[in-house]
């Protein structure tokens, strides 16, 4: 490889994506979008892991990414199931309407 493209580029992109996801989680009020932003964060980490693995020639990071994808899919499935069940009761998926607890 010519080595023009360094690991920095990948890490910068990954960290920016991570921050975008985090901002989304903090700013958005729609739970669906929050779940999406959480996925963005996990994906950013995945990119960083694969970049680390590629540049150090070690497979473990890629394997960890594989597991991270699995976990993310499971989390989304459960999250959406809860969301739908909650929507049937409350008719809203906005954080400000999820206020039964703590009153």
């Amino acid at each position, binding site marked *: 490889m010519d080595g023009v493209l360094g690991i920095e580029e990948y890490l910068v992109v990954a960290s920016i994506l*991570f921050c975008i996801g985090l901002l989304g989680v903090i700013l958005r009020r729609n739970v669906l979008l929050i779940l999406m932003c959480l996925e963005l*964060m996990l994906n950013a980490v995945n990119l960083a892991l694969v970049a680390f693995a590629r540049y150090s020639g*070690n497979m473990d*990071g890629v394997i960890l990414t594989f597991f991270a994808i699995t*976990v993310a899919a499971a*989390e989304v499935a*459960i*999250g959406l199931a809860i969301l739908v069940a909650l929507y049937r009761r409350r008719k809203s998926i906005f954080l400000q309407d999820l206020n039964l*607890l*703590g009153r």
Partner: protein
Amino acid sequence: MNDFKLYAEANDWGLLVPEISLAFGALLLLCREALRKQGRESGGGLAFLLQGGLLVYFVARYLFFDPRPDSAGESAFNGMIQQSFPADVMRCFFLGCAFLTSLFANPGLRERRLPQAEFHALVSLAAASMMLLVQSNHFLMLFVSLETVAVCFYVLVSYHRGSPYSLEAGLKYLVFGALSSAILLFGIALLYGTAASWSGGTAPSDPLSFTMLEQFVAANSDSLAVRAGTAFVLAGLAFKLGAAPFQAWVPDVYQGAPTAVTAYLAVASKSAGFVVLFNLVTGPLFGLREFLIPLLSLVAIITILFGNLGALTQTNVKRLMGFSGVAHAGYLLVGIIAAIGMHPDVPEKSVFWAIVFYLLSYSLASYGVFGVMGVLAPTEDADQPRSLYSSLAQKQPFLAFTLAVGLGSLAGIPPLAGFIGKLLLFVVAFQAELYGLLAVMVMGVVIAIYYYFAWIRETVFPPLPSLDSSDKEPQVLWSPQFPSLLLACILGLLTLTTILLGFYQSSLGQSF
């Protein structure tokens, strides 16, 4: 491909008999449920039998056949897990928690006509993955088993799917959990990346393994990336512990979750988090002690203050237990800090013993309290004002006594187990010369006595007679029922153990 053969041969499944049998038990429960005839209720009997049997088997095995308190810990599954005596103790502990949870939850499930087999299967699977979690010696294993625990709990918390409280709690738990797992993964990625591309010295061949990371971290303790990675990993774990900065979910989720699940969450999940944290800070991250002590101290102080001050104003007892759970996490964090920063002549074992004893007393008392709460719960068990318990001592003296002992132990009243637990933590913190933290802890305990006693007082003394309702009972709709015999026996046993442990704890400690 000889190395692959070596890898494959290192998988010794015999070491994980309890976990495997729990998992297969869960599968059995699910299969039986799937093949069940329509209309026939399936009870939790099989689950109790399975979990209780395993517990007995496991305890007996370690008490009589294979006691290995002094073994240094055996690495298995290519370094994925490490078995040691402390981990074995925790495995028994989780089995016990699973058994109690299944037992306590069953009446509520039956009453609400919720599927029972799935609940017990999930509880068993959560226990199995927590057992793996405390043994994990590799970040990949840690991540996977941590997430399995988390996913089990997402479902369990929102298990009362007819109740918006439970679902809302589940959703909040999930959002916080997913956020913390992303942060945890980010931390792992940073540690992995720096370790894998370490240029000084030989890069570890398996940069995710705790053992290999230990050397790397010790040599690079001033690297910013390592510190950032560590901080992220700890932040991710803080979610499990219910410690700052991820403590905000605790009161809501504790309140909304089904009561038995709240107990499980409060005791087992938190203990798993603490054991993992202990393993991490005394293992791979030990090289960062100068960095970890101030960081964790800050976290502990915020956690203790948040929990205790928040609990002061609560009138809903489930929320109160949530806040106080945060406070207990703070005390335990002090123990963790003592483990890192202890004086050289304090053995590490004694710190671990203090933490385990605290967890034990906390779990006994919590299960007692939550057990009573589960028995007394109205149809919507998220909605438990303190007034619900007024003059319980007159109506159900047994339950009131159990509750009082549990709360007293949580508060740390002298003859009870909780007092000894706090005392042991104080001692190790003192030995580690953490005077500032000690002061905060003492302050927290004093505050805690206030709110726990407000609750006990409510149960003992009848409410003030209201002026306008002379002949009308205030709680006409609610009359406490005596629990089933089995449940009563278990509650009595918990109470008895709490009292006895207050007197005879030293013989237990010697086995360490």
